[in-house]
């Protein structure tokens, strides 16, 4: 059995890697169980591994590629002694300390655990989807909207986040078509009113996207009328999927208090979970801001919270 660690960090997006940098610099020699390569957004490096240019991360005036930014985070954590395990935690037991985590049959134990497994965008699961992400197909209007100045784009979804994205994108795009498979929105009244009164936003009701057009970049989509079954093509250079996010919290069910929406419940203004010694940071506990910079900030909080907690235990 591997030796007990002071700190294990599960997940390696901006939150987990910032927690790794801070806890490594505090001489806690953290082990980061960073996840396994995949194409579904719970991979090492997190959601930024599926983006191209990151232009809103402070400190990079010319912007930086998402994967490169995450490689920098990782190198910085490694430089201060963080260890990495490129595998995925399959099970946890936080009922007693030291806390236990499993990767397959192998057990890892730690005095403190920082959970930063992130969230994934719910996608449409259509052919060619993955290749087009970052090339016209996006799940982050704040990140990519800028690239669609004076172009015609679409937003898929009918909730608050879809309305927020459509409204935000109307600042850049010449026209935004909201594609929704029902004839009414799920979004809150205020978000609906805002979208309805926006002259650049059109609605395509009762339609769903059935395919993407374009190989290396998105050139259009095919939509189907859910009532008549009739299909038609729309020429679009950008399509934003806003049908929701899903936190990567499956392995924590029954172990940590989760909110109704599945996100980890943390005490306000901290990274503390309901279990003393287990901390959560980044998108796995944040359904409001969801930015790399806020994730990194909360990762720093978790590392400091863990460090102080460990000091209290030993003192």
């Amino acid at each position, binding site marked *: 059995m591997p030796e007990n660690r002071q700190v294990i960090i599960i997940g390696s997006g901006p939150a987990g890697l910032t927690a790794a940098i801070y806890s490594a610099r505090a001489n806690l020699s953290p082990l980061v169980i960073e996840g396994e*390569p*995949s194409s579904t957004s719970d991979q090492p490096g997190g959601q930024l591994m599926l983006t191209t240019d990151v232009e809103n991360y402070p400190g990079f005036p010319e912007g930086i590629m998402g994967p490169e930014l995450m490689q920098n985070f990782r190198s910085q954590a490694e430089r201060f002694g963080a260890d990495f395990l490129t595998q995925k935690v399959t099970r946890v037991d936080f009922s007693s300390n030291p806390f236990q985590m499993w990767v397959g049959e192998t057990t890892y134990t730690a005095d403190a655990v920082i959970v930063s497994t992130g969230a994934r965008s719910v996608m449409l699961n259509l052919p060619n989807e993955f*290749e087009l992400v970052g090339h016209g197909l996006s799940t982050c209007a704040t990140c990519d909207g800028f690239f669609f100045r004076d172009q015609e784009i679409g937003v898929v979804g009918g909730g608050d986040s879809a309305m927020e994205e459509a409204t935000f994108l109307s600042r850049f795009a010449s026209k935004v078509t909201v594609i929704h498979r029902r004839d009414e929105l799920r979004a809150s009244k205020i978000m609906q009113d805002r979208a309805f009164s926006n002259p650049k936003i059109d609605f395509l009701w009762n339609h769903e996207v059935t395919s993407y057009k374009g190989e290396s970049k998105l050139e259009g989509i095919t939509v189907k009328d859910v009532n008549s079954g009739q299909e038609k093509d729309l020429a679009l250079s950008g399509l934003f999927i806003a049908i929701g996010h899903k936190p990567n919290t499956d392995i924590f069910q029954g172990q940590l208090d989760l909110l109704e929406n599945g996100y980890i419940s943390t005490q306000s203004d901290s990274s503390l979970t309901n279990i003393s010694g287990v901390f959560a940071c980044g998108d796995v506990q944040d359904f409001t801001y969801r930015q790399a910079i806020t994730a990194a900030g909360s990762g720093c909080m978790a590392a400091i919270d863990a460090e102080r907690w460990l000091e209290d235990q030993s003192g």
Partner: protein
Amino acid sequence: MSEAITILSTTTFDEVIGGSDNPVLVDFWAEWCGPCKMIAPILEEIAVEQGEKIKIAKLNVDEAADIARRFEVMSIPTLIVFDNGVPTKRIVGAKGKAALIEDLEEYL
């Protein structure tokens, strides 16, 4: 980049694929593809560990779009194994080393 991995281009692709006694795994990748970068170190390990049984090669799809089109690569990373110059296996999307080894078992 490890010397164990063969870098392919539009001009060398057919020669390398057709001229190899061992099966050749071609990694269709691009600079802007995060998951491609994730699996790159895994492929280097496999190249070092299994190099006598399978040749590991990489093709940048930005530089060799024609070849990517020829094999209808619509998503990267895509790994295609060529046996005697003929594609016999296709793996789309990044995955961990254990899963990849399992997928390639018939060649190892």
